[in-house]
């Protein structure tokens, strides 16, 4: 058997294993997907909104939180990171309008990181639970109350929500809308095996004691929310995902914005892997599944892209040389014998995996029906799977370069 065939079969096995794992977790827990544990204790909660140059959106975010139906929400703290626009003034205006309920604070100097504003805002929190929401996120009015019940379990250190995309006009936005739904569905499944690997920025709530044990958000990590989650898991806390807690966010609208966001996410992911490499195969599910899952996904995506690139470049070169020579020899550039349609076992495996992956995505989307938005059509889903996802490994490779380059600078 050729080494390339062995590589393909290993890929097939791992992909099949991950898909099977998710399907089995789903089958074993399908009745609990939208579980909302009853609130046994009315925890007091403060929500911190890190804010930077968000004058257009900050007011609406505060208004949205004020509409929350959770009676334990005591305070909304807008932590402004020295915005150069009117964000802080607007927050102060809300502070005056809702005394005691809204508080506006400002970092002594610009920290340049969301983590800086979050940590600064956290200093003013006096409640048992602390939540964070981005300055452009819109939690539904029942989102917080659907999350609180998970804290009945004293081992739970953090609860995260389901992020959905608000803007869905172009292909990129529509693809992200699909992606976010699939990610949420998958994260819920991972929650059943104690393997939620991130508590998202748009809305996550933590037990304040646990948050303080981890010294808040890391100031050196580009994805402070992933780092904090791993820190909590490493300390023995459980993380839960509330699929019924919906929060809408504005996804990047241009390729450039999207590219920069993903670069940040992935470089942050690498920083986190590096920071927690000693936890490999230790610290419960963090070392047994989360870190290996991350590392294997990265390695497979990068190696896969390099392999496919090598194959394509080789094929194009052969075709080019053949075509040049064919022209010179005055023979047909393309003949029927070039169109080899003989199927192989690898094609069967590949097709089976694509169908399984497609079915899984359909299942995830079926679980994320929204009343306010139109359903995704088949072309959007196929476009997401074939075009959007295919571009992703390239970002991973660029992220690795940036990480290595950046690491030297940070040191």
């Amino acid at each position, binding site marked *: 058997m050729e080494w390339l065939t062995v590589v393909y079969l290993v890929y097939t096995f791992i992909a099949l294993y991950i898909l099977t794992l998710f399907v089995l977790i789903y089958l074993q827990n399908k009745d609990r997907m939208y579980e909302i544990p009853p609130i046994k204790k009315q925890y007091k909660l403060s929500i911190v909104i890190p804010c930077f140059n968000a004058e257009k959106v900050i007011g609406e975010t505060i208004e949205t939180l004020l509409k929350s139906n959770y009676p334990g929400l005591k305070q909304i703290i807008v932590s402004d990171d020295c915005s150069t626009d009117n964000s802080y003034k607007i927050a102060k205006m809300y502070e005056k309008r809702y005394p005691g309920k809204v508080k506006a604070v400002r970092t002594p100097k610009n920290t340049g990181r969301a983590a800086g504003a979050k940590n600064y805002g956290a200093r003013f929190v006096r409640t048992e639970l602390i939540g964070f929401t981005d300055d452009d996120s819109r939690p539904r009015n029942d989102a917080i109350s659907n999350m609180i019940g998970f804290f009945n379990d004293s081992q739970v250190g953090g609860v995260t929500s389901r992020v959905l995309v608000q803007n869905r006009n172009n292909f990129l936005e529509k693809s992200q809308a699909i992606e976010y739904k699939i990610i949420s569905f998958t994260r819920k499944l991972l929650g059943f095996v*104690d393997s939620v690997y991130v508590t998202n920025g748009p809305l996550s709530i933590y037990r304040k004691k646990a948050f303080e044990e981890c010294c808040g958000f890391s100031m050196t990590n580009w994805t402070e929310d992933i780092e904090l989650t791993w820190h909590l898991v490493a300390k023995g806390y459980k993380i839960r995902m509330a699929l019924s807690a919906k929060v809408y966010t504005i996804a990047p609208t241009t390729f450039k914005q999207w590219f920069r966001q993903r670069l940040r996410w992935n470089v942050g992911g690498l920083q986190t892997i590096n920071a927690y490499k000693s936890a490999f195969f230790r610290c419960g599910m963090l070392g047994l*599944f989360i870190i290996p899952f991350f590392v294997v996904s990265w390695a497979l995506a990068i190696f896969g892209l390099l392999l496919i690139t090598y194959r394509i470049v080789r094929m194009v070169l052969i075709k080019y040389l053949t075509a040049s020579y064919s022209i010179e020899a005055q*023979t047909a550039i393309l003949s029927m014998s070039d169109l080899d349609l*003989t199927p192989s076992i690898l094609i069967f495996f590949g097709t089976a995996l694509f169908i399984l992956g497609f079915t899984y995505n359909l299942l995830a989307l079926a679980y994320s029906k929204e009343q306010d938005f139109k359903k995704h059509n088949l072309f959007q889903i196929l476009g997401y799977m074939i075009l959007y996802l295919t571009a992703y490994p390239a970002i991973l490779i660029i992220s690795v370069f940036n990480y290595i380059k950046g690491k030297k600078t940070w040191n």
Partner: protein
Amino acid sequence: MLKSAKNVFWEALLVTATVFFFGIILGMAFENSRVDKINDYYTISEISMMDILALNDIMQMENISCENLVQANIDFADRIYEEAKLLEKYEAAGKISDDFKLAHKKYDLMRTFLWANSIKTFDKCKNGFNSVVYLYEYETEDLGQKATQNVWSKILGDLKEEVGGQVILIPIAVDSDLVSLNLMTRDFNISEYPVVIINNKHVITELSNAETLKAYLQE
């Protein structure tokens, strides 16, 4: 939670291993059915080969017309040419089974046999036909050589279509490590591939177009 979590990981591994195992078994069965098909063709071709060899021997004893012998050679060459094309397709798609390699080697041996036999036939029936032996490296990693071989195959295929009735086209992969084939290529002092040998006397290592070949055939 951790205990049940571990269970589902093992369950998934078991299910995956089972599905994967049956997939591989199914794949092997699928490829083996193709190998069987090739082997069936080979058996029939082998009989034809023996028939031609017998014809050659009879010709030494009796006065048989060259026409019969030449036609038998051409028909046989055409048949195994088509079978070889099918074999190459199956071999390219064959990912698990190594049996295609063996079938390929058997066909290369048969074509070497045909080449040797065509030399004998050519000596007896000089004006009856043309023989075109195409020697190439099937497993080469050299992209330039691969491209050259692609074009040469097309040129020879076109030539065969154009003047099929008078030409015995024998493509042979030289990387099958056959003693008889190695001996024959050594006889022709061939060290680089691809190479076309026309009527067992012209060794062509540079092929610009089909016209060059036709010119040699008309000599």
